[in-house]
């Protein structure tokens, strides 16, 4: 188990390095940059600016000092477009916001998706089953960028129940719509997956045995069927949470929550390399951390996986 964890952790390091090198060159080799504008700067000023940010040196030297700063000081460097702010500042300010509503959105996905899937499986081809299928289709055709405007239209413009954007220190009114808009499609996905695996488990021999023993249906479902049925859902939640955090770019922009998604898009517009790269690294670190955590959790639940890990 420990062995497995360590091996996975070491595998992350080269992957992140390749990611940094690849993205770094990709962005630097593209024409234009953070200091290109309609009216070009005088060459002397340009040279000064480039020197100030260490961009006059050859690329591999810059890359080396960039990686060194991250490893030694966890310093992602200054932002090119936002004066007097470092990438660390940007992350420290925006990331908690994204994490907060991302967390609530994940809760929403689990709390609504899992029971819905289980009920749909228990009432196979019944009312709840069809309701859930309908919901799944609904969420597929109303992606968050259609859903979010519709929600604002209803809850803010028509009924005036919830604020249509902003963050305001994270009061619950400001979290509700971003969390739901972000989570709906994944909620349907979780429900569909849970339904499928629950149906499969309910048709398996050990459940038949339990039924034959005369156990009450409630015990069968809660004690025997639930755990194996939730395993696929669990594996699915890892990527989902990552997608939710990275997919939150749209939510940040639309609801102006002030999360990192907004900075990411701004960075993209202004060609702010350090912000783009810093956030890309943050996103992928998050991906790896979550996948690893879920693998461990999976091993903890499923003894078969545990033994195969060695």
């Amino acid at each position, binding site marked *: 188990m420990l062995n497995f964890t360590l091996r996975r952790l070491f595998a992350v390091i080269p992957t992140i390095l390749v990611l940094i090198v690849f993205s770094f060159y990709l962005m630097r080799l593209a024409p234009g940059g953070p200091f290109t504008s309609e009216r070009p700067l005088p060459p002397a000023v340009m040279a000064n600016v480039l020197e100030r940010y260490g961009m006059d040196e050859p690329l591999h030297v810059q890359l080396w000092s960039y990686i060194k700063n991250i490893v030694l000081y966890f310093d992602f460097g200054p932002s090119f477009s936002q004066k007097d702010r470092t990438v660390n500042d940007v992350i420290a300010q925006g990331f908690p916001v994204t994490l907060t509503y991302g967390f609530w959105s994940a809760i929403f996905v689990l709390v609504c998706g899992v029971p819905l899937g289980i009920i749909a499986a228990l009432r196979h081809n019944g009312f709840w089953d069809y309701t859930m299928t309908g919901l799944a289709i609904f969420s597929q055709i109303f992606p968050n960028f*259609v859903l*979010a*405007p519709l929600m604002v239209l209803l809850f803010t413009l028509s009924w005036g129940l919830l604020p249509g954007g902003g963050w305001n220190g994270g009061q619950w009114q400001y979290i509700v719509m971003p969390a739901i808009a972000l989570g709906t499609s994944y909620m349907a996905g979780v429900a569909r997956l849970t339904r499928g695996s629950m149906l499969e488990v309910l048709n398996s021999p050990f459940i038949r045995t339990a039924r034959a023993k005369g156990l009450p249906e409630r015990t069968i479902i809660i004690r025997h069927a639930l755990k194996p049925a939730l395993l696929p859902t669990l594996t699915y939640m890892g990527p989902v949470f990552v997608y939710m955090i990275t997919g939150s770019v*749209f939510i940040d922009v*639309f609801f102006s929550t002030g999360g990192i998604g907004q900075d990411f898009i701004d960075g*993209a517009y202004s060609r702010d390399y350090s912000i*783009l790269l810093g956030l890309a690294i943050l996103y992928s670190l998050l991906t790896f951390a979550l996948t690893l955590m879920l693998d461990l959790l999976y091993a903890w639940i499923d003894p078969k996986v545990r033994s195969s890990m060695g």
Partner: protein
Amino acid sequence: MTSASRRLKSREFADAAAEEMITSRSFWADARGRFLRNRMAVFSVFMLLCLVVFALFGHTIAVWNYEEIDWAVLGQVKTEGGPSLENGHWFGVDELGRDLYARVVQGTRTSLMVGFVAGPLSVMLGALIGAMAGYFGGRFDQTVMGLYTIWISIPYIIFFVVWQAFFGRSLTQMIIVIIIVNWTAGLLIVRGQVMMLKNREFVDAARMLGMSDMAIIFKHLMPNVLWVVVIYTSLVIPEVIMAESLVSFLGVGIQEPNTSWGALISEGARTMTFGTLWQLAFPAMFFVIAQVSLFYIGDGLRDALDPKER
């Protein structure tokens, strides 16, 4: 006697069964029959064809061009710019006084083009690489899988930004960058299938006859995984349309005055607070029709092709 058993004993059924015995049917003919019996899927194909016709010939009945500004309504879009039959703006006008009907036609054209060109091409690319990785295994497989892990952890918006800095924001470039971002689509599933198939006798036989590896992949393995590729393509096309829409929504998509569903929806969402709801409603409606149709077509294809479903 239930209706089912009555049907089983009927004359027509006996005839149909006899006929089925005589004409041997291939897998694909079988699948086609199953697909055509799925009413929802067939209706969805019809709806999609309508959208294609709309995209191809819709401009011929438009009164205005999609880039033309109607100076008569500009400045009073809210009061005069709504859908009306008199001035030829059937869907109203957008914020800049351009005819929304013509713009929706243009947007439909762009989005469908992106979906139906970029979607299949990226699945093909992924399937080819996946088949090779699965067939050759070893170091090549490890490299591909390593690249895959890195690739999916890079936020894809970076690619759009960087690519545009290099080559601009035309439709062709959009399609190319989507293919590049999505080369991982279909990779894992085809790789798994090929790994399963490559040890079967017919592959051994082909190798013994002296066929080259690539010939085996193309002539013997690919036809056997074609059903997976078809199902997967039907899932990727709506995803690609959605990705394009999202990117356009965020403002790093297709260049004005060309437009897409995403760009139109984003304009509509931005202006809905002013009460010009038609600017959101019409593009969203077309988007939703396309997504619903594609969903049911994908569903029908899965039911028709997946051997597990039979």
